[in-house]
């Protein structure tokens, strides 16, 4: 089983700011993400159920409905509901529920460290190409938080992660 840190971007391409999770993954690729990081995409949260099965740390990157737009939030999965935050979900299985379901069904197989890096977006009035300026500006900061979240799990486990 892979021990590479797993970063999973959620979102819909061509759905305006909802695709910010995918944009962060693209940004990490353009930076030349360390080889110890596995960069993945998921179209909707139910796809996470198998992707969360890894002994390595996992960071989920998704749009979060919150104001002001363009803020970067680092959260534990449980905090989404506790703080009344909503990631956008295509098919009724939200991110926090997908994590809880994965932990219930495969308690020993799911990553012991799952964090969410959320980028706040406004409720979409209509879909557009690309990201709004404030959300686009948050992408590098979100990528930075992803790298911090992975390396903070166990700095010694990821020697390829250079300090930033």
């Amino acid at each position, binding site marked *: 089983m892979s021990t590479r840190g797993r970063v999973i971007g959620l*979102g*819909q*391409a*061509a*759905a305006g700011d*909802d695709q910010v999770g995918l944009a962060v993954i693209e940004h990490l690729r353009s930076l030349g993400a360390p080889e110890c990081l596995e960069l993945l*995409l*998921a*179209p*909707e949260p*139910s*796809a996470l*159920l*198998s992707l969360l099965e890894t002994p390595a740390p996992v960071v989920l990157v998704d749009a979060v*409905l919150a104001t002001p737009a363009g803020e970067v939030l680092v959260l534990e999965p449980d905090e989404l509901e506790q703080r009344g935050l*909503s990631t*956008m*979900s*295509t*098919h*009724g*299985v*939200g991110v926090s*529920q997908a994590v*809880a*379901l994965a932990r*219930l*069904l495969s308690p020993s197989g799911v990553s012991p460290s799952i964090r969410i890096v959320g980028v706040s977006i406004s*409720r*979409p009035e*209509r*879909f*557009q*190409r690309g990201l709004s300026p404030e959300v686009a500006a948050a992408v590098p900061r979100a990528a930075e938080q992803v790298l911090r979240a992975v390396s903070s799990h166990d700095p010694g486990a990821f020697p390829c992660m250079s300090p930033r």
Partner: protein
Amino acid sequence: MKKNEPRTLEVDYLTRVEGEASLTVRLEGDRATDVRLAIFEPPRFFEALLRGRSYLEAPDITSRICGICPVAYLTSACLAMEDALGVTVEGPLRALRRLLYCGEWIESHGLHVFLLHAPDFLGYPDALSMAKQHGEWVQRGLRIKKAGNSLVALMGGRAIHPINVRVGGFYRAPTRAELESLLPELRWGHDATGESLEWMARFPFPELERDYEFVSLRHPDEYPIAGGRVVSSEGLDIDVRDWDAHFVEEQVPYTNALHARRVGRGAYLCGPLARFNLNFDRLHPSVREAARRAGLSVPCRNPFRALLVRLVEMLQAFTEAIRLIEAYEAPTVPHVDTPSRAATGYGASEAPRGLLYHRYTLDADGTIQDARIVPPTSQNQRSIEDDLRVLAPQLASRAHAEATRLAEQAIRNHDPCISCATHFLTLKVERT
């Protein structure tokens, strides 16, 4: 509260692709005096985006409309473009396209049946609660869904937004060995789906009989996925090219999505229930028998039983996928040539939720001048609203929580591509 007091059921939910949708049902006694399903859908935007783009880009652009049904958009777009260009995709390439679509049916129906719809019948608020008591069935459902994902990932080049599909076929055809590697899991999925159908056939199904006009594709030999004519239970039998003469979309004031209706008739239903009723004789004999054992027969007019029909379609998809792989011979070329020309093309395929119609007009260079996309969810909106009107006496006789749960379940019968987050219903009572 008293049964005859007017009250309003309000449903509000958030979605990733289609934006927000809400449901309002105003009840006065046993009647629903107002039913509004308000959906925001993005295809209008995509139609504008497509203008000025190359015909080769349409499949990839439209496949991003939906994270659940990219193959449906890829296929309808390819069929419409090939129709415009006078190209026919046959033999192994057509079989590969069908095989890819089987994967999408399995994963989309699997997600809906096991994670979204089954909890309603068992009285659970969500899949997580259901998994605490029925973990083995949820596990089974997820593994079934994963078998579909694997098929899409292999054929499409990746699981999210498949990139291996193009007008005229594929960029690369899989080898026989690659496809055969999927057979063990597909055979397991077939059997597990059959067992799931037997289990869910014992669920309590609310009583509701609806006089739908069913609309689906119909093919001379196959259960409909791609290709064939557009037929209905009221005698419609047309070429896909004639769609615009028989169906119209209209703006209604309370929703951003257009409402479709049959010209001269009104609401109709597409999707699993329509396909099943219009094409029962096209199912594999073993699948027909499994459907009968599950208590399904034609006509099936209870939308709550669509849960079982989806499992029947998954069984059909597994059966077909196994057959197609066992008979597979790699094509000599991964795609046929598609030289551009000025023309209009029409294409339709059966997305998991129902018929997905595409029409494109190209200039001589193959640049898209005009595009039209009619997704199944907009076609079914009126019928979903009508279901709730017919269900009104049952809603009126129930307490708040029970009525809202039943309304939610009735919406989910049709798996609209705006599936609902848990606890999305609130009940507001208006007293006059």
